[in-house]
């Protein structure tokens, strides 16, 4: 397979790897099989193997019901319950098996899991086989019959754990993603004439007799496109410019798309999609949920990658092997002509950025504590990254193959461990780098100053406790006339530690404070790394001895000096302590070219090789996967409906040729994502109205709405809601990048005690300055164990598993958040204030009509109707009168919080007071007591507008 160039290999050569056997049976070597034998080989045995062997063969941990169905003799011998009447050869009616598998025998339905139940056809196959005498030909004979007569396609792989698996055949439609990407199409695709996307879409519309909807109006279009590309609404002047654009619709819209793609906020929005897929968070999860103080640099790397339209192949290489490329670059041990990608990188990228990019490999939740078993946590990482690479880049969830050959897809467990072997020399490190010139370091000093207040308070407490301890010890020794002052001194002098006091603290409060102080000291110290140019990254080398992680991982000077050079073996049943066959680094063997693809066995370069295979233009998965993801975010649904799963159990593409054309378009255009946005958004399909002229007909012909006859409305995603509110109030700080900021969190949630290993976590405190808080949500500090309730409520995914597409559920807590929550109410007030300020005439008179017009323009991108104006003015009047009766008090924020717990040393309760320094200098957003009743009345209006469907849905 060609690795260097981008010349497309002939599809024919690749297609030959998958051979269609069924159509050309070779003459049988031995006698013609009977119908029963054929049934057994082709239908019955695969059913038994898949549905029964798990409990009724030696595969089972414990044989269920004493019944073994793995050979004819055992089957006929029967089991505990039904004796030898389970199968009666020649007469299905006498066979107790039949009512079980047809699920008529209540309490004995087999297989027990209803969703695994046999289909009618499968039941009939077993019935006919029994009636034909239940023949059970030898293994060789079965293999021969299967090879000759089985329908479906044989796929060559690295081989399963059994011959049967290795030689099994697949329904061709389930292999679509393993077929080479189509390069030639039946349609005439002339880019100059027509957008190929529309050709593919319309072909299906026509064949199904569906009329597409008309083009959406310009206001809808600019809202749709602006939200889609930037996650923000358009400004009124942008709307006006677009609506008034004299150019033809198509041209005006293309110019709009171009403008939006140049916005730095494009990268923020699309990076967020990617971060959903890779499970970005600023903490490790699990018991300690340690902060990952440098993870933000990876987040910013992703934002930059989208903004600069980094070719997706490079983006992939860097995330999987940035550190390896960097090493090559540094050591100059690489022929630049040989690896074009590396050549390009040296020209354009700071080598340190490559190290940051490799942070991808550590995005999953992970920790190793004093309670952890090294082998288990290491395996947890290896399993996590293997499955993650499978889902993220290849849309192949590989988890199933951890324990066995894949049940439905041509992925043997050997491939799983071959890919895992690629990561066997990948080790964690927070690596020292330089700051990059385009990293935003604004606010770092300020954040550090605030952080130091916590550090210092904690250190003061620890000093105080040390003093208590010292005094106790001095007195203890003095009372006994011993010549020591401290335990340490006594120990040094050789006193038996058992003769010394066990603990030098006595009160529950002191024990409790000491426990908290020690833990927080560790946390706070580590968190100071936020301000240091470390990269949350990896290196290649031997696996060092595990330690309970309490600080950054330091990169060893010689990564090959100490530790264990891992040799990957297949782990039967996925058990980290099991030992199976050794494997070499490899890739998915069923992907065209995968079987021949060679990876280095040396510790270095494995990931780079894997990455190069992933982005090879002939890899049948990668370009389809990314093209499908892009499409999914534009339309709210994928061409293949499960963007993380292109296997047999995933959804088949609704427009397979279109998907292949888009995949090809990616590759042809240097893997440009922006180019793909342009292609997609400039299609008629994208610009269609959400309303259809004949809904009845559409319901009939396209009930699932997969024809793209209409555009589907969508609800704003969690971050878009918050960002858009900040945008329309003009409170937002549009700065791009930098260390995480802490928006306001519902105060009760922020101060709620949270358990980490051994004690409480420090409270969540917001950034004290509005300009830090009111940044886009992608910059919000993302703690796995303490998420912003607002985000959680609006379906921001947790960062445990990869999220291919967000849910849009409509649940009641969303109403509480938007109607009663501080975030929404603060924004409503700020919006009211803004609009009044902006529309005030020179003599400071209030033109209420003008206010209402401006408000609608900002929130809905349109002016109110007369009816709406009147409604709004009336309600404003009512609420202003109501508000005049309310006298809001100046709000006070707590500057400390008291924690209560039981000390584990004394079993007695203690109290601990945590200082909330931030609130001593907290600058609140505009508060109700700072404005008059008229403004507050307008804030009621604003709150309603921000809650309204028109604001929350995009059309």
């Amino acid at each position, binding site marked *: 397979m060609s690795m260097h160039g981008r010349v497309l290999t002939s599809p024919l050569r690749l297609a030959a790897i998958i051979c269609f056997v069924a159509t050309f049976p070779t003459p049988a070597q031995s006698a013609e099989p009977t119908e029963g034998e054929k049934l057994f080989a082709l239908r019955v045995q695969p059913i038994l193997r898949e549905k029964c062997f798990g409990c009724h063969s030696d595969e089972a941990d414990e044989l269920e019901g004493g019944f073994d169905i793995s050979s004819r003799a055992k089957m006929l011998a029967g089991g505990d319950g039904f004796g030898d009447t389970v199968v009666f050869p020649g007469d299905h009616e006498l066979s107790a098996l039949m009512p079980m598998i047809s699920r008529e025998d209540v309490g004995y339905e087999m297989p027990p899991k209803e969703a695994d139940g046999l289909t009618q056809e499968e039941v009939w196959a077993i019935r006919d086989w029994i009636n034909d005498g239940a023949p059970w030909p030898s293994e060789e004979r079965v293999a021969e019959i299967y090879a000759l007569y089985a329908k479906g396609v044989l796929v060559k792989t690295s081989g399963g754990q059994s011959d049967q698996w290795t030689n099994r055949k697949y329904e061709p439609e389930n292999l679509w993603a393993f077929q080479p990407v189509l390069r030639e199409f039946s349609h005439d695709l002339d880019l100059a004439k027509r957008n190929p996307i529309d050709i593919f879409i319309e072909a299906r519309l026509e064949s199904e007799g569906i009329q597409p909807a008309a083009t959406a109006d310009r206001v809808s279009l600019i809202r749709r496109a602006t939200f889609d590309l930037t996650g923000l609404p358009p400004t009124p002047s942008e709307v006006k410019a677009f609506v008034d654009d004299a150019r033809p619709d198509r041209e005006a819209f293309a110019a709009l798309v171009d403008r939006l793609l140049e916005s730095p906020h494009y990268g923020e929005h699309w990076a967020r999609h990617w971060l959903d897929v890779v499970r970005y968070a600023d903490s490790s999860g699990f*018991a300690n949920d340690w902060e990952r103080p440098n993870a933000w640099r990876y987040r910013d790397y992703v934002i930059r990658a989208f903004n600069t339209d980094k070719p997706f192949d490079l983006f992939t290489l860097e995330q999987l092997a940035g550190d390896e490329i960097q090493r090559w670059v540094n050591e100059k041990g690489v022929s630049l002509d040989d690896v074009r990608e590396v050549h390009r990188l040296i020209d354009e990228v700071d080598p340190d950025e490559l190290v940051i990019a490799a942070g991808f490999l550590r995005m999953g939740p992970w920790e190793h504590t004093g*309670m952890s078993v090294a082998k288990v946590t290491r395996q947890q990482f290896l399993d996590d990254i293997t499955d993650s690479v499978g889902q993220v880049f290849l849309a192949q969830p590989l988890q199933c193959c951890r324990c066995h050959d894949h049940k439905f897809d041509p992925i043997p467990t050997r491939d799983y461990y071959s890919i895992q072997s690629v990561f066997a020399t990948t080790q964690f490190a927070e690596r020292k780098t330089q700051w990059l010139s385009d990293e935003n370091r604004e606010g770092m000093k300020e954040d550090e100053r605030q952080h130091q207040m916590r550090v210092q308070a904690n250190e003061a407490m620890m000093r105080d406790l040390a003093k208590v301890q010292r005094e106790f010890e001095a007195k203890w020794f003095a009372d006994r006339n011993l010549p020591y002052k401290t335990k340490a001194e006594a120990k040094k002098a050789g006193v038996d530690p058992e003769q010394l006091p066990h603990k030098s603290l006595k009160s529950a409060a002191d024990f409790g404070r000491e426990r908290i102080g020690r833990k927080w000291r560790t946390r706070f110290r580590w968190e100071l790394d936020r301000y240091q140019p470390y990269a949350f990254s990896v290196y290649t080398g031997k696996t060092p001895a595990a330690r309970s992680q309490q600080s950054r991982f330091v990169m060893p000077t010689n990564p090959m000096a100490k530790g264990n050079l891992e040799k990957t073996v297949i782990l039967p049943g996925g058990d980290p302590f099991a030992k199976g066959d050794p494997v070499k680094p490899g890739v998915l063997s069923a992907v065209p070219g995968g079987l021949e693809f060679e990876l280095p066995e040396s510790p270095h370069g494995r990931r780079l090789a894997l990455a190069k295979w992933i982005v090879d233009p002939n890899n049948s998965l990668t370009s389809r996967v990314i093209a499908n993801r892009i499409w999914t975010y534009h339309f709210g649904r994928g061409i293949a409906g499960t963007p993380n799963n292109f296997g047999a159990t995933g959804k088949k593409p609704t427009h397979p040729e279109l998907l292949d054309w888009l995949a090809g378009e990616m590759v042809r255009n240097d893997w440009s994502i922006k180019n793909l946005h342009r292609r997609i958004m400039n299609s008629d399909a994208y610009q269609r109205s959400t309303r259809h002229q004949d809904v009845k007909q559409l319901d009939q012909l396209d009930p699932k709405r997969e024809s793209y006859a209409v555009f589907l409305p969508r609800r704003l995603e969690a971050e878009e809601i918050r960002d858009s509110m900040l945008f329309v109030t003009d409170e937002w700080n549009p700065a791009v990048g930098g260390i995480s900021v802490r928006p306001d969190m519902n105060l009760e*949630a922020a101060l709620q005690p949270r358990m980490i290993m051994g004690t409480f976590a420090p409270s969540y405190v917001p950034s004290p300055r509005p300009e830090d808080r009111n940044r886009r949500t992608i910059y919000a500090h993302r703690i796995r164990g*303490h998420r912003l309730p607002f985000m959680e409520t609006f379906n921001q995914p947790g960062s445990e598993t990869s999220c291919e597409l967000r849910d849009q559920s409509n649940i009641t*807590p969303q109403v509480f958040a938007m109607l009663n929550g501080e975030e929404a109410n603060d924004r409503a007030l700020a919006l009211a204030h803004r609009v009044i300020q902006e529309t005030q005439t020179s003599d400071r008179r209030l033109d209420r009509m003008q206010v209402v017009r401006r408000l609608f323009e900002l929130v809905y991108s349109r002016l109110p109707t007369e009816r709406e104006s009147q409604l709004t003015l009336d309600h404003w009047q009512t609420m202003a009168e109501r508000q005049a009766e309310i006298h809001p008090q100046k709000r006070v924020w707590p500057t400390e919080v008291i924690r209560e717990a039981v000390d*584990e040393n004394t*079993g007695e309760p203690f109290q601990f007071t945590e200082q909330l320094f931030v609130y001593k200098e907290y600058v609140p957003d505009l508060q109700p007591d700072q404005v008059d009743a008229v403004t507050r009345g307008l804030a009621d209006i604003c709150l309603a507008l921000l809650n309204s469907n028109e604001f929350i849905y995009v059309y």
Partner: protein
Amino acid sequence: MSQPLRRDFLYGLGASLGSVAFSAMLADSARADDDDLKGSGRNQEPHFPNAKAKHCIFLYMEGGPSHIDTFDPKPKLSDLHLQEFQRSGVEQSAMSSGTRYYVESPFQFAKHGESGADMCHLWKNLAGVADELCFYRGCQVESVNHPTANYHINTGNQFGGDPSIGAWVNYGLGSENQDLPGFIVLPELAYPQGGAANWSNGYLPTALQGTPLRSQGSPILDIQPPAGVTREHQRQNLDFLQALNQEHLRSHPEHDDLTARMKNYELAFRMQMEVPKTLQIDDESQATLDRYGVGVEPTDNFARRCLLARKLVEKGVRFVQVYASTWDSHDYLAKAHGALIPTVDQPIAALIGDLRDRGLLDETLIVWMGEFGRTPDNGIRGGGQAYGRDHNPDAMTIWMAGGGCNAGHTIGATDEIGGQAVENVHHVRDFHITLLRLLGLDDNKLTYFHAGRFKQLSQFGGEVIEDLIA
């Protein structure tokens, strides 16, 4: 007409739109997305109509209570007390390294009730309802870290992200109450390790997630309007909002979600009234308050939540989980467990008795367990005075009451030092299956298609522990 969007688009909080609406919506989404729901479309009928339990109160003893010092006496440990512990095996975690010693229980044990249930002397009240309990000593888990162990007990998956038992039960049985979530969590002030993922809906519809009612401050975040905003004030705003929405609906008749979202606002407005009312325990008689131990120490905190659990079950909430922390007594076991047991003993006994008196015990399954048991051994601490016990995944005690469990029996056994379950041994997945069975649900039928396969609480199936069922 149905929109081909994600399947859980329309639910209110819990099945708050009522079970009829709930199944109707399932049918809606099944129409939109039938591939996804094939085989997983639960109607609201239990799989086993004869099952007694309709509700479950799950008392979660966070931190891992010591079976050896509560319900599983090990006199042998008194003989071995402070002798050096003999262990085998490799790949130990730091917790089991170093020299360790056998540790006897600091508590006295006695047998109670006709069934002769073993309890340490601190269970003064629970002893009075001993015959209502079914003890199980055969359960084993896998993880020795709190968050992963919590996830394992609550969701069947150590690494979190999967649906919790309460979500599954509501998925299977639906809710009986229009205005309350079907799965309510009554946590301690501090959430357990692993946080809200312990009551996650996982890949099930969002509406099935557990709703934590916080024990201090606002029970549900933001359930009350900001200061100064009265109900009339908010109603006026809501009317204005709905008028805007009505206008908008006129221009987008194609969009179903608009009305669903409008309805949700009305439901929320009702809930703001209903939820605080439900949470009040003031209307209970003084005798009831005294019975649970409300208003007195050390029981008040847990007593309030046990009483609330009963009220919620009466209101038709399917699954209530009550947390009690923290049983993680690595040191000073005698003091720590000695202080903890009295905080829960009276409230639990009252809960069982109260439900029985009201004729609700039969239909309410009570489960008491932690995330693992504790070790028979410990390092020497404080000159042998401060000893406690570490985490033990191989042995623990679970007990159940009511809901058709095999009350009055002790099932399974651990070895003579309580280190390992040795009789009627089952992985916790079998306990999950049994719990579902008691609630009339079949783990093999209660499945949901996600990420390429039909998933279930037990992960890959298992078996019912028949001895736990009456």
